[in-house]
């Protein structure tokens, strides 16, 4: 009985991986802590539901940020893209949508979403072309497209708001199916395939390879520019879906929604175990990190703390998690290096190698 339990546990450990295991541990600790301080209300149905309504936006955006991060890049233009495609959808929805529900009515709405996706895909293509073919560094290229895309959105709307959407769009933002918010279902429907694609498909493998070592990947016969193009188009399309969710939740579209999320998405992805220099990271880790961030945010609002303090705690969480990892690495290394330990010579040299690698990382 206990043997099989042990086998189950090790199997679970292997399936989860060390990063996710640590994150789950943190999640559990925080849950206990918050249940103690904020009281049982913290995990009441209403509070869980409000968490479920808030999570998908940041979740989808972080997903859009994670794909380029895996490829060793970065996409600063996701929020501008989300807003531009939301504005496109909003414009199509408010111009020429038949008043009566019917086939044309339904098709028109799908067309609106499609138009938004198309606009986003164009931005993604531009990003991909700049990065893959013109060899502009991802930060700079997407910084430029961010300004450009936001400029288009501001120029067209003069900073105004577009609103007045049909029922199905609002249902997406406020409705529930069997008690679960539709936006959360949409997040699951998007995140699971993306997760599977990144960890199981040939495309996901090549993305991670490009992130680890782009030159080696190109020399091993992979069309790396094509991979990068697809990475940035995928990121932009995920941003467009976020745009749809934001539009549905706020009942309006605007050129400047959600701008404070930009750097938080990077924070969430890195907390979720995505290596910021590329190559490593799983969607499951990201999802756990998002739940942790959401839990902190909800607990803070239950304890009547400022929402900005939440931001502060999010930053501190990342520093603390990275700090414990660094501390553990230092501890292991010290144990390996100490003359009193009975470590064979080979292990000691590998310890030195770790030290060297660590220093390179830090200075870089």
């Amino acid at each position, binding site marked *: 009985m206990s043997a099989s339990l042990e086998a189950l546990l090790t199997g679970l450990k292997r399936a989860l991986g060390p990063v996710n295991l640590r994150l789950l541990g943190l999640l559990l600790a925080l849950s206990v802590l918050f249940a103690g301080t904020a009281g049982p209300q913290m995990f009441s149905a209403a509070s869980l539901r409000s968490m479920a309504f808030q999570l998908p936006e940041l979740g989808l955006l972080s997903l859009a940020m994670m794909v380029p991060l895996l490829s060793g890049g970065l996409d600063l233009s996701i929020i501008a893209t989300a807003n531009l495609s939301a504005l496109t959808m909003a414009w199509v929805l408010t111009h020429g949508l038949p008043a009566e529900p019917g086939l044309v009515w339904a098709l028109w709405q799908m067309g609106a979403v499609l138009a938004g996706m198309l606009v986003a895909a164009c931005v993604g293509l531009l990003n991909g072309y700049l990065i893959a073919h013109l060899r502009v560094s991802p930060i700079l290229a997407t910084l430029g497209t961010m300004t450009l895309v936001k400029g288009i959105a*501001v120029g067209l709307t003069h900073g105004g708001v577009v609103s007045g959407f049909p029922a199905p769009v609002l249902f997406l933002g406020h409705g529930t199916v069997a008690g679960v918010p539709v936006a959360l279902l949409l997040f699951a429907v998007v995140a699971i395939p993306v997760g599977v694609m990144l960890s199981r498909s040939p495309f996901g493998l090549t993305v991670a390879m490009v992130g680890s070592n782009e030159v080696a990947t190109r020399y091993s016969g992979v069309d790396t520019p094509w991979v990068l193009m697809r990475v940035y188009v995928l990121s932009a399309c995920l941003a467009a879906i976020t745009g749809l969710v934001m539009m549905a939740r706020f009942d309006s579209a605007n050129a400047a929604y959600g701008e404070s999320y930009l750097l938080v998405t990077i924070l969430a992805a890195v907390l979720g175990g995505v290596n910021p220099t590329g190559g490593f990271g799983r969607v499951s880790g990201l999802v756990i990190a998002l739940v942790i961030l959401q839990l902190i945010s909800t607990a803070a609002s239950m304890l009547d703390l400022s929402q*900005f303090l939440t931001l502060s705690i999010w*930053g501190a969480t990342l520093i603390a998690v990275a700090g414990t990892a660094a501390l553990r690495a230092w501890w292991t290394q010290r144990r390996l290096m100490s003359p009193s330990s009975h470590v064979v010579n080979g292990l000691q040299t590998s310890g030195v190698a770790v030290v060297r690698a660590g220093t390179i990382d830090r*200075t870089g």
Partner: protein
Amino acid sequence: MAVLLAIGSVLWVATPGFASAQNLMDMLTSSAFTAILATGLLVVLVAGGVDISFAATASITQYVALSLANQGHLGWVGLLLVAVVLGALLGLVNALLVTTLGLSSIIVTIATQSLYYGLLMAATNGQDIFALPGWFNDGLHWVVHVDARGGEQALNLQIVALALVCGFTGWLLTRTSIGRQIFAIGGNPEAARRVGFPVFRLNLLVYGFMGAVAGLASLVHAQLVQSVSPSALVGRELDVLAAVVLGGASLNGGIGSVPGTLLGVALLAVLQNGLTLLGVSSYWSQLCTGGVILAAVVMMAHQGRRHLVRADASAA
């Protein structure tokens, strides 16, 4: 450089107001904040890092220093001292975390940006300070030239601070051994470490300098807009980064110069100013800025590649 001259001459011809001394002085005064921050960020970029947290640092120093001044404890010297020292301390925290955490500097400073900014907003409830000491609002003026109609051209706090920071940074980077070491750790960190350069101490210096400069810039900004708003500065980090990179600094470290950075800031400022003078709606100015940034980075990437090809050819 050529682009700046081209834009400048077009504006010169197209708009009579552009080349007036008054307009140029105004432009210099209003972009001094960005330029000072850009100079500080340049040093970090040259050392191979990135700092995103400087706007949050500046917000904190601005708020703390001017709150103290409002209680009547500080004069000009004390005010500058508080802002610069506090900024430097926050910068040192960045340096410490970047060196010990084993994470890239951009991630660490995103985290500290959230941390600093969140704490500031929580502590202040996001409230602005509009009532500042009279002596601070009056600012500092050194009249250098009075024209025929009695209009004064004066050096003000903004321009003097900008000149001092640029002069010092230029001297630090090009004339001192510390400057060479900063270029070295940015160009090839591993080589610099093996040669025996004190990477940690240099990082402390670089991020501390960035923080101190942010402290100074925050006062320059507060003096210009005559108020303190904890949320006014955060969100501008990426604009400053764009200006520095337009000025030729490399995100990979080891490349960059003060004159180049100033040109980058000037390019964006002139563009903005020129569009306004030409009567282009301000709603479209961001689009133009984005276009210029993209064109510039594409041009730079192209140049970099040509450089690489030439180096390959000469090696072969």
